């Protein structure tokens, strides 16, 4: 895969260059060494102030009592925010929900994306149309998508229940049922991200050398065997990448559960409150910024753990395959 070729550079040599420049004098040489830093300075200034500092300072804030109304006043609490967290049953509910919604949304999403990418990889009439149409949900905001899905999943008059009742199922209470509400919330994630992941997989498939398929074909491998023995191994790095990104995304899930019914508690009995929503509820619902920071830090550690597990699985699988 290569980038679109750059346009031919016109007027490469800036005009009006005088006779060969004399050897650079000391200040000029100094400028030569320093000037690269002026190019990265704008980014790194912003990066330090709004990226790195908040991330690290979250750990500090999590050790203090900080109220939303008086964010300038910090009172030392030690590990108090963490013990309060671990004794709150809603924290554990949110942790469990984050995990189950994460699985419910990530697994079908990536599986379907893989299947769609396989189909998109054929020579197709109107392939740009198919690709673009499938990416459309990705262009929608979480808020807009969730509001539409909340309407579709309405208990009494929602279209989903209407269709289900036509085939003799339901009505399903998509709001109060634990599994039902989590399936509904997950379906928003699946809808928004399946096409995006399909395109990522498609890009990965296109970089698998064609000779591998030709060789497999000569060996008489069926299409399915080609998929399993050529496509899947070739896609491994891409699959790991999407798994990591989706896992991180699932850990952060916030807008979908917030706007599904508009409540900070994620349903009447917290049945679909995620960690992200729990953080927001503690900080901006109950004004406990310190406790919210503790949740953020727990989420950060959780992400590191999940990414580590992901990497381990990927490494072990590649090892077993080389042995085979």
């Amino acid at each position, binding site marked *: 895969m290569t980038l679109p070729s750059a346009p031919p550079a016109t007027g490469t040599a800036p005009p009006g260059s005088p006779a060969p420049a004399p050897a650079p004098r000391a200040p000029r040489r100094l400028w030569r060494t320093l000037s690269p830093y002026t*190019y990265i300075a704008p*980014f790194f200034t912003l990066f330090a102030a709004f990226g790195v500092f*908040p991330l690290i300072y979250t750990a500090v804030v999590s050790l203090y009592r900080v109220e939303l109304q008086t964010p300038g006043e910090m009172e030392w609490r030690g590990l108090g925010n963490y013990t309060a967290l671990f004794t709150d049953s809603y924290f554990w509910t949110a942790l469990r929900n984050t995990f189950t919604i994460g699985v419910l949304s990530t697994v079908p999403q990536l599986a379907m994306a893989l299947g769609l990418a396989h189909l998109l990889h054929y020579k197709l009439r109107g392939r740009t149309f198919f690709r673009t149409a499938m990416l459309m949900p990705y262009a929608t905001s979480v808020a807009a998508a969730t509001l*539409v899905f909340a*309407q579709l999943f309405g208990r009494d008059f929602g279209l989903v229940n*209407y269709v289900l009742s036509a085939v003799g199922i339901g009505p399903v209470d998509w709001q109060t049922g634990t599994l039902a509400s989590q399936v509904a919330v997950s379906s928003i994630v699946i809808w928004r991200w399946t096409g995006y992941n399909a395109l990522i997989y498609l890009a990965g498939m296109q970089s698998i050398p064609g000779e591998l398929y030709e060789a497999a074909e000569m060996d008489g491998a069926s299409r399915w065997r080609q998929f399993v023995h050529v496509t899947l191994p070739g896609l491994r790095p891409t699959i790991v990448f999407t798994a990591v990104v989706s896992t991180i995304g699932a850990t952060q899930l916030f807008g979908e559960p917030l706007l599904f019914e508009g409540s900070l508690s994620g349903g009447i009995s917290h049945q679909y409150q995620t960690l992200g929503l729990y953080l927001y509820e503690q900080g901006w619902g109950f004004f406990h910024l310190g406790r919210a920071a503790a949740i953020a830090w727990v989420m950060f550690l959780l992400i590191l753990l999940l990414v580590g597990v992901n990497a381990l699985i990927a490494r072990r699988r590649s090892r077993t395959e080389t042995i085979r």
Partner: protein
Amino acid sequence: MTSYAGRTRHGGKLTYAILTVAVLVSAFPFYWTLVAASRSNADLARVPPSLLPGPHLLRNIEAVTLEADIGKALLNSLIVSTSITVGTVLCCTLAGFAFAKLRFRGRGALLAVTVATMMIPPQLGVIPLFMLIAKLQWVNQLQSVILPGLVSAFGVFFMRQFLVQALPDELIEAARVDGASTARIFWAVVVPIARPGMAVLGLLTFMTAWNDFFWPIVALSSQEPTVQVALRQLGGGYVHDQSVIMAGTLLGTLPVLLVFGLLGRQIVGGIMQGAVKG
């Protein structure tokens, strides 16, 4: 993006059938937004539901502008997303150029730090960030969303990868021999070549900025909303008229859909390029 490495097989009927279903599933919620936004609330509660657009679109739009200041929200979103896009593309092209073509001490380490943080969700830093903008008295002001939005580690990496491949070293050397300063080289040589990459980064940045949700609802309120803040207000449980909520959703989604309709091809290309590099 047209290297079809050895795959010359045409898709069969089943392939087209499945892909068409996928397209319909992708498109249906958009269509439904239009249907629901143009119906009365009573229509939406009817069984069987009406599946075609109705006559109440304008009335619902009028109602939603009373519930939430959608006009101001659209304008604010345009200001915020445009500022973030211009600023990000500029910062990332400058830094990407330095990382791709200039030699300086600490280059490898700084790039590694940038790439490492690409995966860390900015959401985790919201509490100190909120304390910071509260201290600066920026709460409810657009710069509180614009400035943090300019930080894009992905953008730096993206522009670096683009320039490593697209910008030949000889071109820079030739300009240097002619006595051009680095600044001059940047504007006269680098930017023209970087333009396709800058365009793709700009598109992706604009969409991300327009759709950003968590930080804007923390930093802004209904007095100074972006579109997403206004949608959160509509979905907050106080507006019970579903068709009005859907009218707001329609208005908030149309601008991105418009961009997507015009430039969808480039966005698809950008995501696929990014994937190969990532």
